[in-house]
């Protein structure tokens, strides 16, 4: 019914939720960039500490936070495994036939896993504490200097918020069509990969047609209410950059600098 996966917004009252989305986007961006500058355990600890502190303050329950990250766990495990198995520097610590584990591989795997985990945590925290609308508003504002170079900042933000808005609609539509085809004897969990992919055709065709129809209707509804793109548009929710936002930004930069230098 409701997809609760990666990037899901978790509505709550917390200082982190109240921050200016621009501050949060830039802070998360700084941390993501910083993660690639860090190359020591101590550095990861500093940045990890900052992320965990933000998570605690945000009142997002750790359980649902981890659940939101679960889809990425698979990638995390696979990449680590590859490093452990195929990176052959340092000392041999385990050997059994073609499986040979070296200290260098384990070290690299740990770094990579930490880097990925922190990267995903930081971005998940951003989307968990910022509503899709606020996120789009913030992004639009941050990109607006580029609109002088004819970069469609407003349109991009509008597309993003529409896409996010229609994910639940599409998923409930998909559920409905799947049920209707199941009533006609369709089976979606039978057979090999190819058969399963073919079984989805009766779902994907109506879903695509529905999406196009909905897009047409939405465009018509927007135009009939006077929408003509970004030029000259004012906002109902004005973004305000206040002292706490500046403080958070400073803290994020400090954490990155600290992490990179340790």
């Amino acid at each position, binding site marked *: 019914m409701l997809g609760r996966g990666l990037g899901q917004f978790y509505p709550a009252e917390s200082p982190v939720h109240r921050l200016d989305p621009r501050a949060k986007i830039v802070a998360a961006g700084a941390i993501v960039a910083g993660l690639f500058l860090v190359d020591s355990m101590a550095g990861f600890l500093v940045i990890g500490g900052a992320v965990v502190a933000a998570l605690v303050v945000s009142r997002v329950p750790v359980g649902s936070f981890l659940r939101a990250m679960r889809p990425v766990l698979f990638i995390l495990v696979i990449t680590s495994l590859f490093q452990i198995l195929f990176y052959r520097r340092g000392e041999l610590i385990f050997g059994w036939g073609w499986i040979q584990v070296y200290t260098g591989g384990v070290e690299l795997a740990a770094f990579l896993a930490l880097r990925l985990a922190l990267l995903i945590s930081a971005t998940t925290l951003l989307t968990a504490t910022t509503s899709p609308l606020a996120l789009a508003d913030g992004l639009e504002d941050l990109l607006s200097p580029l609109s002088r170079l004819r970069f469609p900042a407003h349109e991009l933000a509008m597309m993003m918020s529409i896409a996010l808005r229609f994910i639940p609609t599409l998923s409930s539509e998909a559920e409905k069509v799947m*049920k*209707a085809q199941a*009533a*006609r*004897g*369709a*089976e979606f969990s039978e057979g090999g990969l190819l058969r399963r992919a073919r079984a989805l055709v*009766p779902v994907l065709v109506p879903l695509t047609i*529905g999406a196009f129809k909905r897009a047409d209707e939405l465009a018509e509804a927007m135009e009939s209410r006077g929408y003509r793109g970004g030029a000259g548009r004012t906002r109902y929710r004005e973004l305000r950059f206040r002292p706490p936002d500046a403080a958070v930004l400073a803290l994020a930069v400090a954490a990155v600098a600290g992490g990179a230098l340790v």
Partner: protein
Amino acid sequence: MRLELEDVHHVYAPGTRFEVPALRGVSLAVEPGEVLAVVGGTGSGKSTLAQHLNLLLKPTRGRLLVDGEDARGMKLGELRRRVGLVFQFPEAQLFESSVRRDVAFAPRRLGLGEDAVGERVRQALAELEISHLADRSPFSLSGGERRRAAIAGVLAMDPEVLVLDEPTAGLDPFARAELLGLVRRFRERGRSVVLISHDLDEVAEVADRVCVLERGRVRALGTPEEVFYANPALAPATVRVMAALGRAEAGRPVRFADTLQALKELLEG
């Protein structure tokens, strides 16, 4: 084939903060050869009930009996063939390049041979009077034609019970009358129809029994006369007129033709 729901409860998203109880102990039988109408407001659980009749939704509590036996012991595919379910706005399920191929989807899934599939498709198209549209793309048809093509796609399974969820929603009066004709013909062949609707006037015309759902419970169940005359405020126009007249000697007509006859007799007498 006799279907029976036994104390069926259904809860959506149990254990989460989105938990919604949709059915709260529904017991109801669909007798062979009857048209059972299920009426009720939006959110009363009508569509949830419909999806329990072929176990697209599993009861949270309670069970579905098919000819007296627990349906969980049956093969799902077999149950879904015998209980044909037509969803609300079924035209959203059309996907093939021609009406013929779309209607053939279900019989093909049953593993029938080419000849048998062709025969099923012919019959289903003829039943809905759209044989002339067989080679058209379903996406080039009008709304009413698409609706009929979609219903043919379920009829092609040759079901013993036909469950129609709001089949006339958004249709013009002519298309609506034709659809009610299909319901009657289906019953005449000794099969049963579950008609889910909130149009009481159409229910009055075809139903043998009426079940009123209210917030997931059966509020009333009986013949149209019993149910509608017990609560004339929530009844078809025919019953409202007769109840307002308050002439007991006219009897309790429900169908339009019967009501007209009763009124004529009153005027002449």
